[in-house]
């Protein structure tokens, strides 16, 4: 690895960590209803929204909270479906795109409502500006705010005692959008425009290329910056264009690349600090952030190293492979920052890409798959990553608590059969459905016809698709034809299962924890903020994922690596 690569990673982490405290503290204020920066602008707006919606910010118990969340998301789902089916009849459609097919529309609706943003369509060739703005951009905000709302409810469950109330879903949603996402997206989109990301409502531009007697071509236009800003900040990842952030109009230069990459981890990392503030023990938040970084940094360095290796079958030829594996990567971004972005986008459930993951080296691809398969808990989606992490903490605390001879507890809350039932339930879902869906696809001819690569890499493509959808990531091994009805329908179901089947037990745990007494800490209490606990947490995360996915990874990327690099066994 070169020195410049290390500098790039260091600069990135440094800037990220500098943002964690101020943003985290600010978000804690927002969700605790304390006075904060934007009060003067937002308070009247907030009041108006509450009045129009008939909300009397009373507290909700977990079932009311869940019900509100589900109603809101279901209506959102129908809205996206309706808009994308009816776009031909709606305004702001200069290219006169017709309706997208029902299966793709379902997949897209599920995908955007759930913060997945798996794209079964090519943006510039399928969606009108109206659809991009009123359906997709809106859900980019709302799905992110939903994830944060669930996290905040869980935090309240942990920090409150002997109560049933977890806060008000509508208030959490409104404040999340008005105070956090919208202001950040606004500033960020203007910066992006200044760097060359396009933002207009013009019809696609006709142009004549430089080369003589070239025929006239068209280049797409649209309100890109406003969507890119929120897709990065809200760990959504659904790009305006087919090639996402590899497209020069979404990500024109190294500076935008840096900022967009920063935006991927910004809120998820700051949420850790917010967690610490809201439970009144910052060390716990730092411990979770440390756990995430402990996994993130080595994997970043590893992936950079893998992507900088030479293709073993080209070494005999007169080729200078010093820039690494450039297939599917952009020159201005390079292998190092492509690898860093790829790790960041799979560590969080962002899923935007600035290089094609399908063309990563087998081990690079393995890292990306692995990061999703640990359940999107290293940073993860906004909100969803941290509540997933808390689930893993509950698992760890349970096993560790037993080993020190006490009924396990986390932050003074006893972990009892009900919590274990819900946590097991939540953790069970993703691996089981990823494996089942991948297995079905692996022996279904129509599913196999969508593969873009043969052999073990083909299996990796299927595995990546369902791993990405069940974990609400949205990135792809894009050789797979994702508009194939098999994947749009089964994947759409997977997306919904992966999002809501986990949210329900999370809120149930939050409700149950809120009712419990807070137990005081003693020397017999297992500390959950020290280095050893962090290591243990990582071991639990890695071992659960490894035991689940090792066989299929063995038949996918691992064997691809072994064969390509010429290991032939004993």
């Amino acid at each position: 690895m070169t020195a410049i690569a290390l500098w790039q990673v260091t600069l990135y982490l440094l800037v990220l960590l500098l943002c964690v405290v101020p943003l985290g503290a600010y978000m804690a204020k927002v969700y605790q209803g304390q006075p904060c920066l934007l009060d003067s602008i937002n308070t009247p707006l907030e009041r108006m929204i509450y009045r129009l919606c008939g909300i009397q910010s009373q507290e909700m118990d977990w079932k009311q909270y869940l019900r509100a969340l589900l109603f809101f998301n279901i209506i959102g789902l129908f809205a996206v479906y309706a808009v994308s089916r009816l776009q031909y009849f709606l305004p702001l459609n200069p290219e006169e795109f017709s309706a997208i097919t029902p299966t793709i529309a379902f997949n897209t609706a599920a995908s955007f409502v759930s913060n997945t943003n798996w794209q079964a369509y090519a943006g510039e060739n399928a969606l009108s500006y109206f659809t991009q703005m009123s359906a997709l951009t809106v859900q980019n905000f709302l799905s992110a705010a939903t994830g944060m709302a669930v996290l905040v409810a869980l935090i309240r469950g942990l920090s409150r005692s002997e109560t049933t109330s977890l806060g008000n879903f509508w208030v959490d949603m409104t404040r999340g959008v008005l105070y956090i996402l919208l202001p950040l997206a606004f500033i960020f989109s203007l910066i992006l425009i200044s760097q060359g990301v396009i933002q207009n409502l013009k019809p696609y531009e006709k142009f004549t290329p430089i080369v003589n007697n070239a025929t006239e071509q068209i280049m797409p236009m649209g309100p890109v910056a406003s969507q890119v800003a929120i897709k990065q900040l809200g760990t959504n990842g659904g790009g305006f264009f087919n090639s996402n952030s590899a497209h020069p109009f979404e990500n024109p230069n190294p500076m935008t690349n840096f900022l967009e990459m920063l935006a991927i981890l910004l809120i998820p990392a700051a949420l850790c600090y917010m967690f610490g503030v809201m439970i009144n023990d910052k060390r716990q938040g730092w411990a979770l952030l440390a756990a995430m970084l402990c996994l993130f940094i080595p994997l970043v360095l590893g992936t950079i190293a893998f992507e900088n290796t030479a293709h073993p079958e080209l070494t005999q030829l007169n080729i200078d492979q010093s820039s690494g594996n450039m297939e599917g990567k952009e020159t201005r971004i390079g292998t190092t920052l492509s690898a860093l972005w790829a790790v960041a986008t799979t560590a969080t459930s962002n899923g935007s890409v600035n290089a094609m993951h399908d063309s990563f080296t087998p081990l690079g691809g393995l890292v990306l798959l692995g990061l999703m398969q640990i359940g999107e808990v290293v940073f993860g989606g906004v909100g969803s990553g941290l509540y997933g992490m808390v689930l893993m903490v509950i698992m760890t605390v349970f096993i560790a608590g037993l080993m020190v001879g006490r009924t396990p507890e986390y932050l003074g809350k006893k972990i009892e059969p009900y919590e274990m039932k819900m946590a097991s339930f939540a953790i069970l879902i993703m691996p089981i459905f990823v494996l089942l869906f991948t297995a079905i696809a692996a022996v279904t001819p129509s599913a196999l016809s969508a593969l873009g690569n043969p052999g073990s890499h083909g299996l990796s493509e299927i595995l990546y698709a369902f791993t990405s959808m069940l974990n609400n990531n949205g990135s792809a091994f894009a050789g797979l034809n994702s508009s194939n009805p098999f994947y749009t329908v089964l994947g759409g179901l997977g997306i919904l299962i992966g999002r809501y089947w986990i949210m329900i037990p999370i809120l149930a745990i939050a409700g149950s924890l809120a009712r419990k007494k807070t137990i005081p800490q003693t020397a017999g209490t297992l500390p959950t903020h020290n280095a050893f606990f962090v290591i243990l947490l990582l071991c639990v995360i890695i071992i659960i994922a490894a035991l689940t996915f090792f066989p299929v990874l063995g038949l996918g990327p691992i064997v691809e690596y072994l064969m390509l690099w010429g290991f032939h066994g004993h």
Partner: protein
Amino acid sequence: MAIKLSLWDRRLILSAIQDAFIKLSPRLEFHNPIMFTVYIAALFTTGLLIHAWINGDPISFNLGITLWLWFTVLFANFAEAMAEGRGKAQATSLRKSRQELPAKKMESNTHTNAKITIVSSASLRKGDTVLVEAGDFIPSDGEVIEGIAFVNESAITGESAPVIRESGGDRSSVTGGTLVISDWVVVRISADPGNTFLDHMIALVEGAKRQKTPNELALTILLTALTLIFLTVCVTLLPFSIYSVNAQQSGHVVSLTVLCALFVCLAPTTIGGLLSAIGIAGMDRMIQANVIATSGRAIEAAGDVDILLLDKTGTITLGNRQATEFIPAPDVSIETLAEAAQLASLADETPEGRSIVILAKEKYGLRGQELSELNASFIPFTAQSRMSGANLPHRQIRKGAVEAIEAYLRNLGASLPDPVRSSAETISRGGGTALVVTEGSTVLGVICLKDIVKGGIRDRFLQLRHMGIKTIMVTGDNPLTAAAIAAEAGVDDFLANATPADKLKLIRTLQTQGHLVAMTGDGTNDAPALAQADVAVAMNTGTQAAKEAGNLIDLDSNPTKLIEVVEIGKQLLMTRGALTTFSISNDIAKYFAILPATFAATYPALDTLNIMKLATPESAILSAVIFNALIIVFLIPLALKGVSYQHVEAARLLRNNVLIYGLGGLIVPFIGIKLIDYLLVSLGLV
């Protein structure tokens, strides 16, 4: 009653082997979801084996796998049967004392003139009164309402020294099956047949009424979830194998037998097979410690306790004040004081009096003298004078509390010298009691009496503090004395001038703060507090009310037992945690054994992962299965004895256990599987 059993008692093992087969009935297997899946897998491979045999296919590999899957089930059954067998052995010895006994049932409640009929103990009901005389067995549980007697309770406690049982007070409860060896008592029966203490004990130790404790339930849920995941892993491996064989055009699709083998290896069978054995063994360890738990939940709760309420007397101190020092008045030699003190106490048979004589003898070589030889008469302690002493010819020696002696001196026209008064005050500030000794109107000095803190108790409390358990001493003493003793014993806090009501209030306050409180008690007035505490150890010598309020009963009636109880509770949880960790870490090695073996025919490159260099695919898979089965047997002693408990803080305990069971669990199977593979190959079995 607790009989000591060696771990590998021959009879126990034989009957456990028998039970292991009996437990193969599906109805019995069903209660353990993890082992039930293994059971199904074994049945399935048996079917495959028969199918292969009928088709005339080679069956040696299938046979090996099938046999070892059945062994896995049997070993788990054996572990459970071993634990149950130990309980049953205890129960058998208890049952001996539960034969039908004749009872002298009384028509009225008074001893005199009551008409007595001889009935069988089985016909006695709650509220009946019976007369029990010397040589009779007490027919059923009850309370002494009249009389006093020595009772031999060895059948229950294993302690052969007889104990006094009398009406009123805290020693009124008697247990069915114990023997009255002197005098007589009238007992009011407090339990219907089949519902006595002994019946409960038998049911408990046999495990008949064993329900899963909350913690065990939570663990079962987690293990079931893992089992489901592994089931999915194995089921989906078939399509993945089909895909790979098609893609590669070589090798063959993985066989169902191998998938079953992989599943059994991955499923947390080690902990699954030993889980109920651990629970039963925990109960058994309590019984070995002579503590009866009314439920498994109580044992678990004991592990969670973070505050111990300890009675001062008997738990922290030896229970009697003892003379520790003589402090002479000015111009009086210490020998003079010691001699006078000894003379004043020669006939004083109270422990305090005896301790003064002993101190004088040990420290100043004064031999005990006979009062008769000295021609002395003894002045006993009375409530009026509040002094005791001796009258010798020409000498009148008195000892007593400061106030009493002051009054005595005033009558003689003398007063207490200031230096003596100040040393008396120093003593009481230090937690002791001062006795002033006078001869006539001359004050000779002060005897210091002190509560003697039990040896080693300070270290014990230090250990508890490391474990995160706070100790609170409860005493009727004044705050000054209490503070001094608290400091000497090293308790964290104390409750002075304590009344039963104060105790109850303290427990409630602590509980609202979220603490889990344990206490011991024996008196009826302790009952409310016992009922309130999370872990309440009632002394077996205590009243019926106390025993009913407690959730643990200490047959030795030893208040320090509480500490042991906490340790056993923790040990129980730790054993579960350690074996779970071990079981899960094991899986990594098994993957490295089975996966290359299964897929190397399709992808030769995958043989790179065969890092143990196992001989053949068959030997690799079989070795993993055999290791998986044998490890259950190897861990039975650990499950029964429990993980050893160290008195260190939670963080260090965790680190130690993770290193031993986590890292150990990672490494051991690599060695074990390689070894088994080597053996299989050298024995020519594969």
